[in-house]
């Protein structure tokens, strides 16, 4: 046949080259055409889309051949320029990739022209394909976790409802304390928690199951052909996987509440089963009670430790002192519980204080001091945003109020200040005074008690101070661990002026006004 007529025929085939489906299908079509039309004996398509490692599709390269020749890309580069080799960079046509064809005989001029058209067509098709794939991905996936989104989850429920995959089980998982993590650690860390939760859940299910992020902190797992017992086993695996993950990431532990439900047959709407699983998840959350709160507290402590290294161990020590004082004054069990929580999170408002203020080792300026004084108010707002912490929000706000009414933020006085906040104020002050914090050394146990005694009726509730001093005199110096804040054994420190406690130092003027016990 006349070669020009053949060229026209091949041109039509090349220009009408199409595919519907996957990259693999496109490559199969490409192989069928390039081997038949051009006699290509080796064909490769390398795609650099969305990955550092290219997706390689190769034909005519037996296993042993590549083992001997090395990397496919190296082989292509080595042979580029040979008469029987055609290589085309698809990037010029908008698709990051490479097309490679090889045959024994030289490719003639008209064949190279046709191959240019074929390569262009392949690049165009791939561009459209990747765009469609991306759109499909975006419309069905949650961009943060990569899991399916709610729309896809609901569509899947509708599809399964009509199918023959019953029994269908559903698991609802809720990430506890996400809001607090977002508010305190920032959304970036909150997102990390979500991704961790997604990974943990996805690891526990089969490839045929579907995991979706169906809400801000809520995940759902669809388990086709799974009865109740098997679903409960998956839920147990998830809980166990969370614990294992927490062992690897003790700094910010995950806490996930889990609920399951099963639709045994198509007679039961899957949306109803979903509702049941959701209810079961809430029951689990309530049943575990303190655990979600514990997760929130751990998150907050982790956040605070990141911001205020000087306060390491502070909350634990304050909790011990405050509880001792609380027991001594005969607090109820419920109040003691609240006091423990308050001690854990009383400083969370410091998350809203600029880092340079918290970490400053010299005296604070007026502006910095004002900034620092906002932390009870900020803590109050953070606590209010969490179901677990809301009961102590007001107590947080009051923990820097003075008995005399000269404290902050609202200048409450006497019994206007909640007793738990008053207890905490004493314990907090004692720990701060006896802690090694910039800019100077810690006070001795005796000096600290003397300083507290001095401030009874002004800064502190005098009755509480009395009990505290009696208690502390019996107990002796508070026990500490770690390198920081060892109490001074020497009595010399008692001769010193009372030192500022807590991070940063208030300016001279503020101290003179008697607003706080911090001073140079």
């Amino acid at each position, binding site marked *: *046949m*006349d*070669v020009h*007529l*053949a*060229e*026209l*025929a*091949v041109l*039509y*085939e090349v220009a*009408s*080259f*199409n595919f519907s489906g996957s990259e693999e299908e496109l490559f*199969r079509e490409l*192989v*069928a*055409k390039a*081997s*038949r*039309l*051009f*006699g*290509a*004996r*080796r064909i490769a398509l390398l795609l650099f889309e969305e990955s550092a490692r290219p997706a390689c599709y190769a*034909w*005519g*390269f*037996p*296993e*042993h*051949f590549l083992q001997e020749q090395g990397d496919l890309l190296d082989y292509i580069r080595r042979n580029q320029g040979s008469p029987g080799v055609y290589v085309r960079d698809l990037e010029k046509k908008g698709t990051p990739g490479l097309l490679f064809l090889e*045959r*024994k*005989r030289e490719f003639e001029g*008209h*064949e190279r022209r*046709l191959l240019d058209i074929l390569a262009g067509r392949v690049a165009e098709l791939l561009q459209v394909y990747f765009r469609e794939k991306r759109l499909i991905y975006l419309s069905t996936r949650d961009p943060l976790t990569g899991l399916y989104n709610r729309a896809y989850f609901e569509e899947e429920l509708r599809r399964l409802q009509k199918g023959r995959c019953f029994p269908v089980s559903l698991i609802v998982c809720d990430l506890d304390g996400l809001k607090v993590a977002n508010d305190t650690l920032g959304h970036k860390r909150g997102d990390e928690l979500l991704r961790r939760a997604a990974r943990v859940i996805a690891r526990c299910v089969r490839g045929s199951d579907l995991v979706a992020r169906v809400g801000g902190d809520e995940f759902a797992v669809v388990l086709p052909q799974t009865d109740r017992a098997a679903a409960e086993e998956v839920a147990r695996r998830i809980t166990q996987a969370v614990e294992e993950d927490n062992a690897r990431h003790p700094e910010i532990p995950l806490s996930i509440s889990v609920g399951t439900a099963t639709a045994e047959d198509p007679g039961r709407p899957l949306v109803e089963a979903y509702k049941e699983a959701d209810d079961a998840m809430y029951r689990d959350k309530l049943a575990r009670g303190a655990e979600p709160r514990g997760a929130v507290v751990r998150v907050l402590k982790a956040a605070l430790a990141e911001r205020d290294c000087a306060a390491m161990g502070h909350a634990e020590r304050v909790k011990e002192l405050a509880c001792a004082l609380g027991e001594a004054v005969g607090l109820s069990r419920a109040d003691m519980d609240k006091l423990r929580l308050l001690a854990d999170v009383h400083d969370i408002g410091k998350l809203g204080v600029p880092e340079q203020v918290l970490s400053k080792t010299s005296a604070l300026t007026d502006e910095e001091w004002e900034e620092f004084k906002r932390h009870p108010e900020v803590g109050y707002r953070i606590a209010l945003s969490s179901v677990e912490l809301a009961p102590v929000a007001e107590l947080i706000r009051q923990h820097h109020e003075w008995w005399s009414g000269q404290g902050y933020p609202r200048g409450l006085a006497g019994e206007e200040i909640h007793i738990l906040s008053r207890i905490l104020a004493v314990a907090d002050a004692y720990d701060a005074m006896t802690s090694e914090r910039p800019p100077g050394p810690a006070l001795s146990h005796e000096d600290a008690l003397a300083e507290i005694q001095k401030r009874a009726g002004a800064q502190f509730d005098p009755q509480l101070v009395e009990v505290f001093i009696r208690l502390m005199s019996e107990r002796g110096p508070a026990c500490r661990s770690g390198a920081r804040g060892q109490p001074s054994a020497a009595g010399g420190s008692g001769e010193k002026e009372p030192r500022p406690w807590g991070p940063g130092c208030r300016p001279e003027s503020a101290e003179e006004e008697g607003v706080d016990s911090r001073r140079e």
Partner: protein
Amino acid sequence: MKAGVGFSCAPSSKKAGAEAAGKACCLLEKPVLAFLFSTDGYNQEDVLEGALSETGGSCVVGACGAGIVTPQGIYREGVAVLALGGEGISAVTALVQFIEGDPEETGRRLARNLLAKAPVRTGTVFVFPDGLANNISKMLCGLYEVLGPDFQYVGGGTGDNLRFIRSYQMTECGVSSCSVAAALVWGCSFGIGVGHGWRSVGAPLIITKARGRVLYELDEQPAFDVYSCRLGGLNPQNFAEFGAKHPLGIADASGRFIIRDPLKVLPGGAIQLVTDVPPKAVAYLMTAEKEDLLRVARDVATAALQVVRAPGFALVFDCVSRSLFLGNGPEEVAVIREVLGSLPFVGFLTFGEVAPYEDVPLFHNKSLVITVGGE
């Protein structure tokens, strides 16, 4: 390298197999591989059993065809064996069932089976797929994917006596249908010739809709309407006659045609072909005279012969429709014999032929493939 051939048209299947194999093996000390070709009037299991009784435990690869090609002519019934042996020649065989809906995997599996028995890097693969199967081209694509261009590929589609019902493939392990039988041979050189002799007539036709072996549309019209119109109006009842004379040819970039053989008209005006046809391709109506086919037979035999330094034997895979086109006459075999001289050869009438135009195995129709083996 030594080769022996034998032919028998004994009415007993077992006897025919034994006679043909006995003649082929009698001069060989220890045959390595026996090619066994049979026709569908025989009981294939018995043919194989008879042959195995004479091949002395050698590998056997076999195919049932629409006729047997021997230097004496083409036989509609008979059994032929070509036995191969000698120092340095080795062979393994495999028989794989076509995997429903996945012809490529069928080819890959066949290749892996061969390599599992013989981890060699080069050789010649004799492939005998069921000629009635779909997507044989894709099966070859899968076979090549695993073995690659360092192997040669040659063979033919198995068939029956034009009843298009059932065909058989075999190895020393047994007889099968809807399968591919293959032998991998190394330690022996092979030259391969392929050609058809058909030439294009008229304007091009666009295959606008096709799937597998069914051609639905040409130029956006029902395929038969367009085909018939090009030939001046056809009665579907006489289609076979015209189809045999006017196949379709699909050109490659070098101007070579791969032929597709129309088989029958389907309801709705679609045309069923013997072999799968690529969609969105350009096809031409083809025509040929007897002389064209005979000329090509000479070219094919010559091409196969000239590659091998010391030819020892030849195998012929000749499309059954060429034989019909040539009126079942002896001319084509005579031409082949003229070129090959005293070289022993056998072959069979195929339903499609396997051979490369360059390196890659293609599935042809209405073509002649000859391979000459030697040192």
